């Protein structure tokens, strides 16, 4: 099998690998949790596959009945990003609920501590 690489292909392969390296580095430095990195790794791998094998895009476009194959790329990207952002909103909602419960607990405990201190002062 003969492989012909165009400049854009080389550039996009290099770009995708750089993204992958960046992700590994972020996880290594613990700036990105493994849990959330999985999704990004998945995306980076998809990028690499598309850069090595651009014909895949034409194939998907024809499968979906899209005449202009770059629109298939936009469709995939936008859908992916939309789901990713939705996932973040869910995570943020969970976090704000936990944060609210924590704040309430701190408030309740603070009152209890103040009362205990008062009682202590009186009995002494």
């Amino acid at each position, binding site marked *: 099998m003969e492989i012909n690489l165009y400049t854009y292909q080389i550039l996009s392969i290099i770009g995708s690998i750089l993204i992958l390296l960046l992700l590994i580095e972020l996880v290594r430095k613990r700036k990105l949790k493994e849990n959330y990195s999985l999704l990004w790794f998945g995306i980076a791998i998809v990028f690499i596959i598309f850069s090595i094998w651009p014909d895949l895009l034409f194939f998907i476009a024809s499968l979906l009945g899209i005449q202009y194959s770059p629109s298939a790329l936009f469709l995939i990207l936008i859908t992916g990003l939309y789901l990713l952002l939705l996932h973040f909103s869910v995570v943020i909602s969970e976090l704000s609920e936990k944060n*609210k419960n924590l*704040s*309430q607990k*701190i*408030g*309740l405990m*603070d*009152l209890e501590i103040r*009362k205990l201190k008062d009682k202590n002062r009186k009995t002494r």
Partner: protein
Amino acid sequence: MKTLIIIPAYNEEENIKEVIDGVKKEEPDAKILVIDDGSSDSTASVVKNTKKADIIMLPHNLGIGGAVQTGFKYARKNTYDMVVRVDADGQHRAEEIRDVMQPVVEKKADMVIGSRFLAETGGYPILTRRIGQKIIAFFTSLIARQKITDSTSGFRCYNKRATTLLSKYYPTDSPGGEEIIFLQKNAIKIKEVPISIKMREKGKSSITTLDSIFYMIKVVLSIFINVLRTPIIK
């Protein structure tokens, strides 16, 4: 009946003392709990100086729903039979606390709303806000299948069962209308009694016109979403 009166407050240094004094005078046996929702003014020290109320200081601003729920959690922890909620801006008359409590005391209702619109007892001059309140009340009534004239009133009374429910879950994003539907869905009997209000004398409302519009949309949305939810307690 062991009664807790909760007053959620956000930057109300000018009104809070009078409110506490009024409530203490009318209901000397009830415990007063102020929930300071991360005020940046001296609300907390004003409350402490009165020596008539306990105060919970939230580490940061949670919004009215988060503050009120803190009160329910406190009531649950310290086994109160009844919780009354009064606003910190002084618009509610302490003399009327008894009226709002009465249906709960007589076991005629699990939750009571002090309605500003049930009887023409006191005017409410801010037109835009009044229209918004009417719209929210309309949707609330429609879904609750019960006539609610004032679903945004902050003058309310709850029995033990309602308190327990709300300590576990409170619609913090848009309290008021959603609270009514949530409670009603969990088989809480709601009753309205007429109240009259005093207009704010000092300090300023934490609600702007844009806030009101945003709030209204949020409430209507959450009211409809609540229809799709199942009760948390059978």
